[in-house]
């Protein structure tokens, strides 16, 4: 901001020029109150204020250098160049109180006593001098070694395994994927983006920019500011993250560290244990932390307080090939049914016909006569292998495209009512059968399967009996090569107000791993939690009609989620 009459900062909704001046002066003094600090920062989101601020800093620096250096002497030349300035200050001086300088003489200090010490001549023998020299040389060598010798001999200790949108400050250091990184005396500044580094002992850290960190050695990182999430396998036990006032020592775990610029920091332990050591403000703290716990260090007081552990605070895994930025979230199979990638993009209104595998933008319902005894693959849904209509009357049913079969389904009507969909609504048809008045129109409307808002707002797969859907786990693994599938979880719900029976089934590679029966009296919801091994290829979800027909069997797999664990490279697997 220049001091113009047409000053753009004169808008009354923004601080006046004078007010901003005041904020800058206080900022440069270091006396800005927190309230003013917030206002000052808010001003600086506007480039005009930034320009003004920079110019003021420059002027202040000029004045500091000129006046503090003592080269400023009043000039006696009567220069009338800037009359307005004189007028302005004339006005100011007219109402300003006089400045009184203290001219009190400083009292002279009185010499009380002069003490003379007798000179003592000490004898020093030669061996003492030699010992002293050797000791001094040793100390000098140690100091020199500590300061001059590079940390860990400047050896390569880690590899940059991946990055997404990373912008590094130091362009001299190659930070391409696969770059070998050395323990160094200087910090690395990741201005933005994400980077993943794997140490040679297989500890892995994911850094979220902006962050400044330093690789101190083969099992140690210093975080100056920013966020780091570390995954430490057993062979890297003892891996450490150091911050300004603290140290977090791993005891075989996964944990995240968030270091703020103001010195405050947080530690969140997601698995295993860590020891959190802090000496901030001279207060020594040594805390054992377990999975699910988190602590916050207040840098001003040195106090450590307990906070809620946030599982989604840190980016835990990245994969530039699939653009995966994983914060621990599960893959949502309802989104997959809607055509999404499991994290977003699914259209919940779409549906899959279990008798053909056809995908429709709006789910079709009121199938009453269609039957199918074939396994039908689904196009354009890469994570879905196929769909089918289960019926035990004819023996084993094929449930995967690889040929897995299951012979445990009961006899069903062989019919189904609805497409498989992520949209838990049924079409209610009025005036179709009961109303015989010819003038009354047939009206269809979508009715939620439950009046419970909690049920309706969570993601689900609506599998009206009799239908089944199989997910291709191998395809999911291929899409996320840096993650391992660990578990499938869901909640079986039968919110129908009609007392109807239905069965829920979960199968892995044709083997039943979960089954429950729903009827109005016995089941409203049941939790499914199924571990998935690396060799499992297909996950199948099925509902059958409880042998009382498929009508009103509104079966939901609520929150159907596949959970991951980050894949850490082992020594054998290499990078």
């Amino acid at each position, binding site marked *: 901001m220049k001091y113009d009459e047409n000053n753009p900062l004169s808008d009354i909704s923004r601080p006046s020029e004078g007010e901003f001046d005041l904020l800058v002066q206080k900022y440069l003094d270091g006396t800005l109150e927190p309230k003013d600090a917030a206002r000052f920062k808010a001003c600086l989101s506007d480039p005009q204020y930034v320009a003004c601020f920079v110019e003021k800093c420059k002027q202040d620096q000029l004045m500091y250098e000129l006046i503090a250096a003592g080269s400023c002497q009043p000039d006696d030349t009567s220069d009338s160049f800037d009359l307005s300035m004189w007028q302005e200050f004339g006005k100011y001086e007219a109402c*300003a109180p006089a400045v009184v300088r203290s001219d009190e003489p400083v009292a002279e200090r009185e010499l009380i006593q002069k003490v003379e010490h007798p000179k003592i001549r000490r004898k020093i023998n030669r061996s003492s001098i030699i010992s002293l020299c050797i000791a001094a040389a040793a100390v000098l060598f140690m100091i020199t070694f500590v300061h001059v010798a590079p940390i860990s001999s400047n050896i390569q200790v880690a590899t940059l395994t991946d990055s997404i949108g990373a912008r590094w400050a130091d362009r001299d250091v190659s930070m391409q994927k696969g770059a070998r990184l050395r323990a160094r005396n200087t910090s690395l500044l990741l201005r933005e983006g994400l980077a993943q580094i794997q140490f040679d002992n297989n500890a892995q850290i994911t850094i979220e920019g902006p962050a400044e960190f330093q690789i101190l050695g083969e099992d140690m990182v210093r975080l100056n500011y920013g966020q780091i999430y570390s995954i430490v396998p057993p062979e890297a036990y003892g891996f450490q993250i150091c911050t300004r006032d603290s140290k977090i020592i791993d005891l075989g775990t996964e944990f995240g560290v968030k270091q703020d610029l103001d010195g405050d920091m947080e530690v969140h332990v997601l698995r295993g244990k860590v020891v959190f050591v802090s000496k901030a403000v001279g207060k020594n703290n040594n805390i054992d932390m377990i999975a699910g716990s988190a602590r916050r260090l207040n840098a001003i007081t040195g106090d450590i307080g307990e906070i809620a552990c946030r599982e989604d605070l840190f980016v835990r895994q990245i994969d530039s090939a699939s653009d995966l930025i994983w914060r621990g979230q599960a893959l949502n199979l309802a989104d997959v049914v809607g055509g999404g990638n499991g994290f977003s993009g699914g259209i919940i209104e779409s549906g899959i016909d279990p008798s053909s595998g056809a995908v429709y933008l709006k789910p079709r319902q009121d199938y009453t006569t269609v039957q199918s005894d074939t396994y039908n693959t689904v196009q354009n849904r890469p994570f879905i292998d196929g769909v089918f209509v289960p019926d035990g009357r004819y023996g084993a049913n094929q449930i995967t495209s690889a040929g897995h079969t299951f012979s445990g389904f009961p006899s069903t009507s062989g019919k189904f009512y609805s497409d498989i969909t992520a949209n838990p609504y049924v079409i209610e048809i009025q005036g179709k059968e009961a109303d015989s008045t010819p003038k009354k129109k047939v009206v269809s409307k979508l009715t939620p399967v439950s009046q419970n808002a909690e049920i309706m707002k969570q993601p689900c797969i609506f599998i009206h009996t009799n239908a089944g859907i199989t997910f291709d786990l191998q395809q999911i693994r291929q899409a996320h090569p840096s993650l391992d599938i660990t578990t499938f979880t869901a909640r079986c719900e039968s919110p129908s107000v009609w007392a109807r029976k239905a069965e829920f089934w979960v199968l892995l590679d044709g083997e039943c791993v979960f089954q429950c029966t729903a009827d109005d009296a016995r089941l409203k919801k049941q939790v499914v939690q199924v571990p998935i091994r690396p060799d499992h290829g297909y996950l199948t979800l099925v509902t059958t009609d409880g042998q009382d027909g498929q009508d009103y069997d509104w079966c939901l797999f609520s929150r159907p989620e596949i959970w991951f664990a980050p894949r850490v490279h082992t020594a054998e697997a290499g990078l």
Partner: protein
Amino acid sequence: MSLEQDQIIELILRNRIRLTAFIRSIVSDCHSAEDIFQHVCLLALQSSEKFNDTTHLLKWTWMVCRTESLKNLHTRKNHPVIFDEHILEMIQSESEKTTFLDDPEIYSILQKCLSLLSMPVQFMLKKRYQENLTGARLAEILNRDVNSTYVAISRAHRALYQCMRKRIKAAEIS
């Protein structure tokens, strides 16, 4: 091709006010800014062989000023304002621009303009900058209200700014 140490010193000193002001904009304290600037000079001399040309050196210097300033903030507990990356980017890009305050004659012009101020105002500014007094301390010494002291400093700054600009403009025209 690397730069000679003389070239490095000459270039950094030529941009000293801009660089130091930039550092101050981050750390606010003028003594810290001086220390950081000196440290950056030292680092530049130690890294002399890696600079291809003066543009490279200048880019490097801005970057190191920024990182060293941020590092300095880590060692301080009560810094009232810490800028985020976006604001820092804007401050840096604005600081890199040259304005009339970078004119080589600016010291003599500033001195001239200072001499035009009334003696009490000159006294106030001298106290502030020579003894590095905060507005509150200055108010105490001058037996005035803190706010009115800050207002007086701001007015003096504004008047000096106008004065310097007019003189630089006049010099350009002549």
